[in-house]
């Protein structure tokens, strides 16, 4: 035990009973969160928070610290087995809209194509604006014992800011401007629970957006737009994976919540099919824009319509597949209009 005679100095912290002797070997990806969690500082066998204050996992709590009422208590409330991996991936794959998009590749387009792209990008800046607000809300609710989920959501907030900015930038580089704003994604602000967020925002909404971005080749008119969608899709894949693995964790470890999860999706699907209500990527303004972009102009909207149908179908196939993988088979309860899109796949 270390002691001192200097007045005011007691060095109690040198004697706290936390595990010492921790070492970690960096691997090919450097020193990652998984590597430092291979010790007793990890989360194995930890299903409920040990301390309700804001004390980070593994440190010695100050017994005077007050509890933080806004944090969840159970691992199942917030945990995602992929949080650490996805966090590290997010830090590795950050990109800059200022310099990583070849803006010089954007060339003047006819008014229909330019306004269609501006309409789509206006819509996306709305969606991405709120897609940052929602995870931002839940950062404080992640218990410090399961902080990796918080770290990941922090990267999502960053990603959404960048998406919002890259789509805004696209609007202003090629002779266009903002289109009139549609419903956007205000409904997402009604989300009240972490797991609800992962079902509604990640599994459903970001899933649809990711499918759309992955089909960016079909709607892009130049290499800058292709890269914009490709990089954004990469980010969305992480968000989606986080949500999928959280929902999977809940289904596997708290099966009594399965019906609740289905219910979130029931509601979300219903909203999506009501085209005059707020919906993601399926509202009339963006539908029209997508048809013009995919077809190559107003004169080819029949071709565009076919491609939009393909997109919708792909979105729903991928969504249904993801839901099934996490244990939420939607084949019997998917909204009929969406189920119709699945066709033979249903």
């Amino acid at each position, binding site marked *: 035990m270390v002691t*001192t005679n200097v007045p005011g100095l007691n060095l109690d912290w040198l004697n706290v009973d936390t*595990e010492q002797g921790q070492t970690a070997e960096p691997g090919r*990806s450097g020193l990652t969160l998984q590597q430092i969690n291979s010790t007793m500082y990890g989360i194995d066998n930890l299903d409920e928070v040990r301390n309700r204050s804001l004390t980070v996992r593994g*440190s010695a709590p100050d017994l005077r610290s007050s509890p933080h009422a806004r944090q969840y208590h159970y691992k199942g409330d917030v945990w995602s087995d992929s949080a650490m991996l996805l966090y590290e991936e997010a830090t590795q794959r950050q990109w800059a809209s*200022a310099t990583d*998009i070849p803006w010089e590749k954007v060339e003047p387009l006819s008014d229909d194509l330019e306004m269609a792209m501006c309409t789509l990008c206006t819509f996306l800046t709305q969606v991405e604006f709120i897609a940052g607000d929602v995870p931002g809300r839940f950062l404080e609710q992640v218990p410090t014992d399961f902080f990796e989920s918080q770290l990941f959501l922090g990267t999502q907030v960053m990603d959404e800011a960048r998406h919002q900015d890259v789509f805004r930038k696209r609007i202003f580089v090629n002779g266009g401007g903002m289109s009139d*704003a549609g419903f*956007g994604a205000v409904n997402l602000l009604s989300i009240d629970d972490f797991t609800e967020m992962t079902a509604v925002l990640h599994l459903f909404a970001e899933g649809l957006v990711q499918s759309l971005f992955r089909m960016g080749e079909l709607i892009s008119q130049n290499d800058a737009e292709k890269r914009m969608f490709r990089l954004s899709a990469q980010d969305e894949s992480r968000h989606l994976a986080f949500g999928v693995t959280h929902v999977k964790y809940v289904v596997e470890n708290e099966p009594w919540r399965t019906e609740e999860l289905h219910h979130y999706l029931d509601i979300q699907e219903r909203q999506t099919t009501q085209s005059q209500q707020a919906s993601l990527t399926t509202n009339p303004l963006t539908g029209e824009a997508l048809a013009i972009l995919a077809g190559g102009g*107003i004169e080819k909207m029949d071709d565009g319509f076919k491609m939009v149908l393909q997109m919708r179908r792909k979105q729903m196939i991928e969504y249904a597949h993801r839901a099934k993988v996490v244990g939420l088979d939607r084949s019997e309860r998917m909204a009929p209009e969406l189920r119709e899109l699945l066709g033979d796949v249903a």
Partner: protein
Amino acid sequence: MEIPAPVMAKVRARGWSDELIARITESVARPDQVANLASTTLTEEKINGWLDFLERDPENPFVAAPLSILTTKSELGMWAKPGPEGLRLKDINIGSYGVVPDDWRYENDTPRGAHPTTGMYIPASYSIFDKSEVWADNLDDLYEDAIRDRWISSTDLDWENGLKELPEDLERAVCQLCTIYSNNGLVEQKVIGKWLEEISYGFYEAKSFLGTQIYDAGRKAEVLRKRALSNGGGLGQAPLGLHYKGWYGALKLTEVLITIDVIYKSYELSTFQMAGDLAQTPLEEEMWSYLARDSQRHLDYGLHHLRWYMDHHDLAHEILPIFFGRQEATFAGEMLTSPAEREALVVLFAGGTENLQAGVDKLQQLRGKQLADYFERLDSVGYDHAARVNPALVGLTEDPLAARMLAPATDPEPEDN
């Protein structure tokens, strides 16, 4: 279809040929569609192509598409050009889009520069509509700088060769600092995160910059934890967290920015800037240096917001002393009653536990530097605070271990009768 006179006027103004007009008249096209087409510079070939589509596929649902997306209430003709550092936010703040209003009017996610489509407006829960409560004149650059200056803790630090075995007391002191600052990073992230949903779209640059700060705060929590768990040590004593009460207790965004991005960041930056004294290994020297660069951006936002608030908020001169008073009190309270940070600094400054008084002397220098830096930074934006600063922050420059300040009050000597 008979083209209504107002639409015909638009069509004529566009110079469409009589042949095209005749074809439109004979088609299933609607007046609203024609009016929208006439708002564009589309060629007759394009419009004829669209008429072909109407004839070719009359059952297609997009035949009825109003083509309203071809028109907008917003300004068109934007040709933003990338500068030497690429296409930055300031490069797209052009025309009417460069105007950041003093009061933002839309309660939903209508982007700045856009207008809601009639009948498609859902008010949302945003609460910050007054520019003075959130704005700073350097936000666009700070946001882009944060992205440009990004770093990766797992690979940008040399975990392979940048560490070396340290004596136990020094290793534990490093780990103790890492424990506290990592904890602070997590809570910083939580507090800022909850304010995002308050900021309306009119001031999106502020939200975007705070997004980068959230990311930075997470990285701070992560890299410091990695350092604590990689070199033979472990985590130490968690902070008491009185300052967290201040952060959470801030009831306006400006107060949050004052407590985190001005008061706390100023002290944090002054500490991180002493990397040469704190670092025991090359890895730490680099780590503190990266963290200092991040803190500098956060502080720059806080200070510039403070100046903006002073210049634009009617009651700033009354409110700011209260914000500073409340927040310095919890911050100083943490410094006084949560001794692990200062004691770990003493051990690091002393090079171990052998000559602790030397470390105390150095801590006193740091406390003096922190206070002087704090005043200088506030002065730089025109906020004269020295006369009102919390006395404990001054006291710590003379009594860095707070030994006298925390000493139990002694009973007065009984008076002789």
